[in-house]
C-alpha cells in the first residue's frame, strides 16, 4: 500500500535513517567519550608514575637536605664536612654510587677521596642559584656507569650558600625502579631524558617519533596509544604506551555489538530504544565520571564496583587501581610526617628536661621558647616568659648589648661562658654563666642561651679561696719548714722557713734545692730511697720522725726531722706529699749528749761489763760479783779479797791518791770515783774505774759500801796514745822547719807554728790578730782563694805564692795544703817553705845559660868570619908568590913589582885584621874603670883627636849637646863616638862635607846621633854593616871591623846602636845607653 509504504517509507526509512544516524552518532559520541575517559585515566596513571619517580628522587633529596642542615655542613669547614659525609654515606645503601661536597668554586670533594672541578657544567649554575639539581651523567668517573646526580645546595648559619652536597645514583637502579612500576593494561612505561633518549622501558620504535604522537604502531602491526608527560624534577619525560587491543578495542567491539544487536531487535523500537540504549550505555560511564569527580573532590575511598559496569569494567579497574596507589602514597606521606613529629617531640623532651635553663631567642632577644628549668629558675610560667625579652630577666646586659652580642656569633660554636645575673620574678637575683649558640631555622637565625645558676659554685669557690689563703698563712707562719711535692717529684710549694732551711730557689712555680748531700745519722750517705718523701711515695702512707743529716756546706750539717703525709687523688692514689721539716740539730746534739750519759749509766749498772762489789764494813765482809773475779783473773766463786789485799794490789803510784779520796768519801766529804791501777792475778797492772756509794748510820759511820768496777785499761791506753800523738804532732808543729798555718774554710787563721811566725817576722800573737790577706802579697790573693776552695772540696793543694814580711819585704813561698778534720769540722792546713833563695838561684842560672848560649852563637859566627877573612890574604900572598915566580921567569919587571906590592898589601891587611881582632877580644875582657861621663867633654875629646882630618877636609861640624852625664866606660864610649864621626867625615859629601853630632838624655837613657850629608845607606844594608868585617865599599880603607867593635861596646853598656834614615840626605848613626849606673855595673861585671 502506498500509504503503508508511505508510512513505511515515512516511518521505517526515517526510522532506519534515524536509527542509522543515531547509531553512527551514538557510536561516535560514545567512542569520543570513551577515548576521553581513557585518556584521562591514562594521564592520571602517567601523573602517578611521575609522582612515583619523583618520590624516588625526593627520598634522596630529603636525605641530602637533612645532611645539608647538619651543623658540620653549615660550619662550612671541609675538614669537618668530608668525614661527616663519609659517615652518612655508610647509612645510604648501595644504590648510591658516591657522595660529594661541592664548593662554590666548583671544586668537588668525593667521600671516596676524588677531587675535581665542575664549575663548567651546566647544572652547576643552577646549583649556584640555590636550586636542587637532578642531572643525568653519562659514564661516571667512579663506576663508569651512567648515573644520576642529585645536588642540594648548603647554607651557613647566616643563610649564605656555601656549597652543595650531592650524591649519585646508579642509573640502573632508576631504570629498575621505573621498569618495576606496576602499570595497568600491560602498558609499557618509558623514561625519556631531556635529550629524548629512552632511558628506561623497552620500545623498538625510535623515541623521537614519540614526541608529538598520540598513537604508534608497533613492530607486530598493533596500534598503541601513547601518553607522554614531563617530570618537572629533572626535565625528564615519562611515556606510557598502551596497547590498543587491551584497552580500546574490547570496548569498541562490545559497543558495536550492542548497537548492532539493538538494530537487530527492531527498527521500531530502534528509535524509541535508541535513546534508552544510549542512556543505558552511558550510565556506567557517568558513574565512572562521577567517581572520578568524587575522588578529585577528596573522597579517596571511592571505588567502582567493577561487576556493575559490564563492558566499562576495564575503566573502573583502572580507576580503582589508580585510587589505591594514590591512597598508598598518601599513607607514606602521613608516615613521614609522623617521623618528623617524633623527632620534634624528642628534641622538645631534651629541651624541657635539660638541667640548665634554656632560652630560645630571636636576633632581637625576644624569647621564643624556654624549657622547664628556665621557668623554674626564674619563677615565671612559660607563657609569661614568652612575652619577655632576654634583658627582662638579665640584669647585667642591656638589650642592645645582647643584640650586638648576637651579631658576633657567626657559626655553630657557642660563645665562651659569659658572666651574667638573672632576676627572678620576685625580684631576687642570682649569678649565672651563659653560653649562647646560634643556629638557623627556616632561614631565620635563632639563638639558644644555656644558662647555669652559678651562685653555689661561686660561693664554694670563694670559700675554697679563703680556706686556701688561710692555710697558706698558717703554713707561711709555721716555724717548721713545709714543702708540698707533687707526684712528679717537683716541689710545688715551700714556705719561708723551707726556702731558708733548704736554700730553695724558685723557677716556673717549681722549687729547686741545691744538690745537698744527705747522710743518715751514722754519717753514711743517705740512700735516695730513704728520704721522707721517697718513703711517703713508696708507702702512700704518712711517715713521721724521719731523721737525717743535710750537709749545706762543708762543716755545716743540719739534722732534719721530717714528718710527711701523702696527698691522694680521688682514687686514693699517691698524688704528692706534704713534708714538714724541723731543724733539730740542737735537739739532736743535746739528745746525743744525753744518750752518751745514758750509756755511761748503763755501763755503770751493767753487771755484764762491770763488776759489782759490796762491803759490809761493820762485819768487814766483802761481796764480789762474778764479773769482779773475772776482772781480777780469779776463779768465780772464790773468796773475795780483803781490804788489805786490795790495798796491796793497788799500784803504788795510785795508793796515796786513792786512799785520800776514800778517806774523804768515808767522811762524807767527797765522792768515791777513782781511776787507778790494780795488779790482777796474772801479775800485770790494769786500769780500773772504781766508784761507789755508801750507807751511813745515825752516828755517821759508814756501815755498808757498794760500787762498781770496770776495766778501763783499753781506754787508758788509747788516751795515752792519743796524748802521745798529740804531743808528737804538737812537737812537730812547733819544731818544724816549715811554716804551718791552719785556717778555717772561711779564711780565718786558726793556728800558726813558730816557723810560720818567723817567716813573716811577726810574733804568734801578732799573726793571730792579722787577716791572712795582710801577710799574703796581693799578687797571691787569688792563690789563697784557690787554696781555700780546693781544700773545701777535700783536695790537696800545691802552688807557689808570695808572702809579705813585717816591714814590707817579700819572700817566695812553696805552699802545700791539705784538708784537716777536727771535731767534725774541716780546716785547711798549709805548710809553707821559703824558696826565695832557690828561686833567685834558678833565675840566676837561667840568665847565665841564656848569656852563655848567646856568647856561644856569637863565638861560632866570629870563628867563621875570622877563618874566612884571614884565609883571604893568605890566598893572595901564596897566589902572587906563584905569579911572582912566573913573572921573574919572564923577567917582566913591572909585573914583578906589582906582584910584590900586592903581596905586601895582603900581609899588611892580615896584620890589620889580627890587630882589630885583638882589639875586639879586649872589649869586655879588659875593663876600664866605669864612671860618670860628661857628654860634652866626650864630644870635645873626639873632635880634638880628629881635628887634623876635619881641617884637612874642611868638614863643617855642628854639635848640639845638653849637660847630661851618664855612667859608663868613658874610653870605650869615646872610641864609639870617634868611629862614628870618622865614618861620617869619610862619607860626607865631597866639596861640602857636613857632620852633625847631637847628644841628649831623658830620665832613663842617653842618646847620641851622628849625621852626615853623604850618599846614605840603603835600608836593606843597615843591619849588615854592624857585622864583623862587613864593608859596603870594598875599596874603602879599614878592615870593616869598626862598627862591629862599636856595637859590641854599646851592647856591653846595655844599650843599642842602629842606623836611622836621615830625613834629608846622608846617613844617621845613633846609639842609646841607659843612664842607670847599676845596670851598667851589673852588665860590666857579669859579662866581663
Amino acid at each position, binding site marked *: 500500500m502506498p500509504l503503508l509504504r508511505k508510512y513505511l517509507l515515512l516511518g521505517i526509512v526515517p526510522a532506519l535513517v534515524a536509527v542509522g544516524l543515531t547509531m553512527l552518532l551514538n557510536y561516535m559520541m560514545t567512542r569520543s567519550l570513551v577515548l576521553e575517559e581513557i585518556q584521562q585515566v591514562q594521564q592520571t596513571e602517567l601523573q602517578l608514575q611521575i609522582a612515583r619517580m619523583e618520590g624516588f628522587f625526593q627520598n634522596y633529596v630529603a636525605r641530602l637536605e637533612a645532611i645539608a642542615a647538619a651543623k658540620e655542613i653549615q660550619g662550612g669547614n671541609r675538614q669537618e664536612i668530608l668525614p661527616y659525609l663519609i659517615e652518612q654515606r655508610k647509612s645510604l645503601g648501595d644504590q648510591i654510587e658516591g657522595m660529594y661536597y661541592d664548593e662554590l668554586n666548583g671544586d668537588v670533594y668525593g667521600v671516596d677521596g676524588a677531587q675535581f672541578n665542575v664549575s663548567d657544567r651546566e647544572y652547576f649554575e643552577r646549583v649556584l642559584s640555590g636550586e636542587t639539581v637532578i642531572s643525568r651523567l653519562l659514564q661516571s668517573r667512579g663506576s663508569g656507569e651512567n648515573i644520576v646526580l642529585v645536588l642540594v645546595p648548603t647554607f651557613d648559619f647566616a643563610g649564605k650558600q656555601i656549597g652543595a652536597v650531592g650524591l649519585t645514583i646508579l642509573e640502573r637502579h632508576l631504570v629498575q625502579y621505573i621498569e618495576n612500576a606496576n602499570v595497568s593494561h600491560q602498558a609499557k612505561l618509558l623514561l625519556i631524558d631531556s635529550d629524548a633518549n629512552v632511558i628506561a622501558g623497552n620500545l623498538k620504535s625510535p623515541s623521537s617519533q614519540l614526541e608529538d604522537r598520540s598513537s604508534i604502531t608497533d613492530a607486530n602491526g598493533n596500534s598503541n596509544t601513547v601518553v607522554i608527560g614531563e617530570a618537572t624534577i629533572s626535565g625528564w619525560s615519562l611515556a606510557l604506551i598502551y596497547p590498543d587491543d587491551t584497552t580500546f578495542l574490547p570496548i569498541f567491539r562490545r559497543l558495536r555489538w550492542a548497537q548492532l544487536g539493538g538494530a537487530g531487535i527492531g527498527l521500531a523500537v530502534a528509535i524509541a530504544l535508541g535513546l534508552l540504549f544510549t542512556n543505558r550505555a552511558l550510565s556506567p560511564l557517568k558513574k565512572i565520571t562521577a567517581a572520578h569527580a568524587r575522588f578529585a573532590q577528596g573522597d579517596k575511598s571511592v571505588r567502582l564496583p567493577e561487576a556493575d559496569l559490564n563492558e566499562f569494567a576495564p575503566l573502573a579497574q583502572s580507576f580503582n587501581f589508580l585510587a589505591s596507589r594514590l591512597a598508598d602514597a598518601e599513607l607514606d606521606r602521613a608516615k613521614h610526617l609522623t617521623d618528623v613529629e617524633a623527632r620534634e617531640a624528642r628534641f622538645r623532651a631534651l629541651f624541657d628536661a635539660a638541667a640548665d635553663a634554656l632560652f630560645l631567642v630571636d636576633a632581637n632577644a625576644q624569647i621564643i621558647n624556654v624549657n622547664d628549668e628556665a621557668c623554674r629558675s626564674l619563677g615565671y610560667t612559660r607563657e609569661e616568659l614568652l612575652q619577655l625579652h632576654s634583658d627582662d630577666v638579665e640584669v647585667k646586659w642591656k638589650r642592645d648589648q645582647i643584640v650586638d652580642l648576637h651579631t658576633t656569633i657567626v657559626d655553630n660554636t657557642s660563645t665562651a661562658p659569659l658572666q651574667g645575673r638573672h632576676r627572678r620574678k620576685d625580684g631576687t637575683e642570682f649569678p649565672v654563666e651563659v653560653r649562647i649558640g646560634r643556629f638557623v631555622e627556616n632561614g631565620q637565625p635563632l639563638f639558644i642561651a644555656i644558662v647555669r645558676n652559678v651562685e653555689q659554685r661561686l660561693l664554694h669557690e670563694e670559700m675554697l679561696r679563703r680556706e686556701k689563703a688561710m692555710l697558706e698563712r698558717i703554713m707561711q707562719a709555721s716555724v717548721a719548714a713545709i714543702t708540698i711535692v707533687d707526684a712528679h717529684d717537683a716541689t710545688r710549694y715551700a714556705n719561708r722557713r723551707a726556702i731558708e732551711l733548704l736554700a730553695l730557689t724558685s723557677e716556673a712555680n717549681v722549687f729547686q734545692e741545691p744538690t745537698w748531700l744527705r747522710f743518715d745519722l751514722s754519717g753514711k750517705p743517705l740512700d735516695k730511697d730513704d728520704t721522707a718523701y721517697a718513703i711517703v711515695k713508696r708507702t702512700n702512707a704518712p711517715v713521721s720522725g724521719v731523721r737525717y743529716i743535710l750537709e749545706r756546706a762543708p762543716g755545716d750539717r743540719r739534722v732534719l726531722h721530717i714528718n710527711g703525709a701523702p696527698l691522694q687523688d680521688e682514687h686514693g692514689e699517691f698524688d704528692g706529699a706534704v713534708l714538714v721539716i724541723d731543724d733539730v740539730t740542737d735537739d739532736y746534739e743535746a739528745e746525743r749528749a744525753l744518750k752518751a750519759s745514758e750509756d755511761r749509766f748503763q755501763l755503770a749498772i751493767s753487771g755484764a761489763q762491770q763488776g759489782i762489789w759490796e762491803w759490809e764494813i761493820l762485819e768487814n765482809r766483802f761481796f764480789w760479783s762474778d764479773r769482779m773475779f773475772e776482772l781480777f783473773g780469779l776463779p768465780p766463786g772464790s773468796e773475795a779479797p780483803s781490804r788489805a789485799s786490795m790495798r796491796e794490789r793497788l799500784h803504788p803510784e795510785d795508793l796515796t791518791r786513792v786512799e785520800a779520796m776514800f778517806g774523804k768519801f768515808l767522811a762524807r766529804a767527797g765522792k768515791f770515783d777513782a781511776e787507778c791501777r790494780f795488779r790482777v792475778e796474772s801479775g800485770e797492772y790494769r786500769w780500773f774505774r772504781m766508784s761507789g756509794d755508801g750507807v751511813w748510820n745515825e752516828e755517821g759511820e759508814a756501815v755498808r759500801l757498794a760500787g762498781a768496777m770496770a776495766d778501763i785499761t783499753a781506754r787508758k791506753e788509747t788516751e795515752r796514745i792519743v796524748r802521745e800523738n798529740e804531743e808528737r804532732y804538737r812537737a812537730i808543729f812547733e819544731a818544724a822547719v816549715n811554716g804551718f798555718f791552719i785556717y778555717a774554710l772561711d779564711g780565718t787563721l786558726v793556728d800558726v807554728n813558730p816557723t810560720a811566725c818567723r817567716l813573716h817576722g811577726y810574733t804568734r800573737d801578732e799573726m793571730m790578730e792579722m787577716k791572712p790577706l795582710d801577710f799574703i802579697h796581693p799578687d797571691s790573693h787569688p792563690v789563697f782563694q784557690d787554696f781555700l776552695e780546693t781544700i773545701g772540696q777535700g783536695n790537696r793543694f800545691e802552688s807557689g805564692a808570695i808572702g809579705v814580711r813585717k816591714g814590707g819585704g817579700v819572700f817566695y813561698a812553696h805552699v802545700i795544703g791539705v784538708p784537716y778534720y777536727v771535731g767534725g769540722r774541716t780546716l785547711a792546713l798549709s805548710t809553707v817553705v821559703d824558696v826565695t833563695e832557690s828561686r833567685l838561684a834558678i833565675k840566676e842560672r837561667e840568665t847565665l845559660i841564656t848569656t852563655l848560649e848567646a856568647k856561644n852563637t856569637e863565638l861560632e859566627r866570629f870563628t867563621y868570619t875570622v877563618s*874566612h877573612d884571614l884565609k883571604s890574604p893568605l*890566598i893572595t900572598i901564596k*897566589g902572587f908568590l*906563584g905569579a911572582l915566580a912566573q913573572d921573574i921567569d919572564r923577567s917582566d919587571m913591572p909585573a914583578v913589582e906589582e906582584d910584590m906590592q900586592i903581596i905586601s898589601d895582603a900581609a899588611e891587611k892580615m896584620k890589620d885584621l889580627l890587630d882589630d881582632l885583638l882589639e875586639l877580644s879586649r872589649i869586655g875582657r879588659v875593663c876600664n874603670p866605669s864612671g860618670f861621663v860628661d857628654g860634652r867633654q866626650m864630644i870635645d875629646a873626639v873632635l880634638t883627636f880628629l881635628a887634623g882630618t876635619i881641617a884637612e877636609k874642611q868638614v863643617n861640624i855642628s854639635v848640639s849637646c845638653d849637660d847630661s852625664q851618664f855612667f859608663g866606660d868613658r874610653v870605650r864610649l869615646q872610641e864609639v863616638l870617634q868611629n862614628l864621626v870618622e865614618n861620617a867625615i869619610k862619607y860626607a859629601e865631597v866639596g861640602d862635607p857636613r857632620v852633625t853630632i847631637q847628644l841628649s838624655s831623658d830620665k832613663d837613657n842617653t842618646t847620641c846621633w851622628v849625621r852626615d850629608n853623604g850618599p846614605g845607606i840603603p835600608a836593606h844594608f843597615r843591619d849588615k854593616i854592624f857585622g864583623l868585617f862587613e864593608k859596603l865599599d*870594598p875599596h874603602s880603607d879599614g878592615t870593616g871591623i869598626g862598627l862591629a867593635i862599636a856595637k859590641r861596646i854599646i851592647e856591653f853598656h846595655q844599650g843599642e846602636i842602629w842606623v836611622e834614615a836621615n830625613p834629608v840626605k846622608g846617613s844617621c848613626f845613633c846609639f842609646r845607653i841607659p843612664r842607670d849606673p847599676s845596670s851598667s855595673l851589673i852588665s860590666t861585671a857579669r859579662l866581663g
Partner: protein
Amino acid sequence: MQGRPIKVLLVEDNAAHAKLVMRSFREHAVANEIVHVDNGESALEYMFQIGQYQNVETLPDLVLLDLRLPKYDGLHVLSEIKKNPSTSSIPVVVLTTSDAEADVNQAYGHHVNSYLVKPIDFIEFSKMLSDLGFYWLVWNESPKRR
C-alpha cells in the same frame, strides 16, 4: 866551537884574588872577555841589565861568584840568578875561601852549578880555573839562549 865571544862575569871583592883569576883565564885563553864586579849589588845589576849596567847587551856564559861580598852577599846573588828564568840557565860557580858546611849546603840549596874552595897554592889555583873554564865554557852544553 861557539861562533861568538865567550864572556865570564867575575864577582869578587878582593882585588888581588880578582887579578889572580883574570890572570889564569888569560893564560889559558878560555874566555874572550872577563867582566869584574866587586860587590853583590853590581853583580845583580849586571845580570839583570839595570842601573849602571843597563846597556849591557849580552849576558855572561859563566858567573864566578865569591860568597862574602859587600852589600848583597853571594848567596843572595846566586838565589836571584837562579830564581829568574832569564838567568837561571847560566852556570854559576861559587869560588870562595869558605869550606863551611852551611855555606856549601846553602849554595846547593840555591841550585849552584859548582862549589869550589880557593886553593892556597897558585899553581893549583891556576889549574883549577883553567879546568873550570874548559868544563863550563867549552865542553859543557848549556840550553841555548835567545
